[in-house]
């Protein structure tokens, strides 16, 4: 038998082969922003520990244009992460009520509600208004 199976190479361009893969990559890139923002906050804690002057240095850094741009991007990516995470929650946590499963929309809806309430509470407690 003269079989000679041909193996096609897997190249990184699979990402651009369909919008779903691009959306996946955007979701995965959100980790860069969430990670870097958290590290920025760790630096903030260091400044807080070092006293009032250091803390105001931190606040000034926040006010720089680069920081504002970074924050806007980070906010967008973090929100996208939240939306995708809550939309996929029903897949990971199916709930069966009697014979049928609770609709996906209900489970993700509940997650979105918790998110909204929690965010509002944080904004309120932090006195953001």
């Amino acid at each position, binding site marked *: *038998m*003269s*079989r*000679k199976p041909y193996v096609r190479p897997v190249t990184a361009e699979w990402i651009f082969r369909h919008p779903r893969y691009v959306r996946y990559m955007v979701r995965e890139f959100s980790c860069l922003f969430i990670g870097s923002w958290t590290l920025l906050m760790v630096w903030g804690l260091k400044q807080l520990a070092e006293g009032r002057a250091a803390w105001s240095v931190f606040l000034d850094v926040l006010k720089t244009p680069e920081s504002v741009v970074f924050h806007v991007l980070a906010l967008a990516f973090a929100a996208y992460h939240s939306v995708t995470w809550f939309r996929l929650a029903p897949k990971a946590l199916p709930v069966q009520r009697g014979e049928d499963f609770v609709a996906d929309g209900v489970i993700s809806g509940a997650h979105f509600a918790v998110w909204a309430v929690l965010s509002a509470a944080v904004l309120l407690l932090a006195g953001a208004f």
Partner: protein
Amino acid sequence: MQETGATETVAGLRKEMMHTMEQHAGIYRSGEGLTAACATLADLRSRYGGVELHDKTNVYNTDLLQALELGSMLECAEAVAQSALARRESRGAHQRLDFAARDDDKYLRHSLAYYGAAQTPRVDYCDVVITRSKPGVRDYSGGHE
């Protein structure tokens, strides 16, 4: 099968066979319909030798596969047509318009078709082994009585 210079194609013969069986060996059959089918199938089986293989490779050769399948299908088709022609009664999915009644005396037996030297198969019978379900009138009309 021919090396080159085919007079027939696998697809062509297969289509003719399917058409013949569809028309004459469906659920409702008749004597002359089955006779016509047997004649056509015998002709197709003789023309089968004129088929040519276009794909001469040894790796996943579906052309060869279909050609071989066609040969077997033609044999089965003729066996079905011949034994249907011989079975002068109606039973289950074999409904002869010219022999509407079921005839347990003569035909409560399996049909067998043997391919020997002659081109057309010889039809023979063998007894049925009755176990749990006894032969009886299968009347699903749910009507009278």
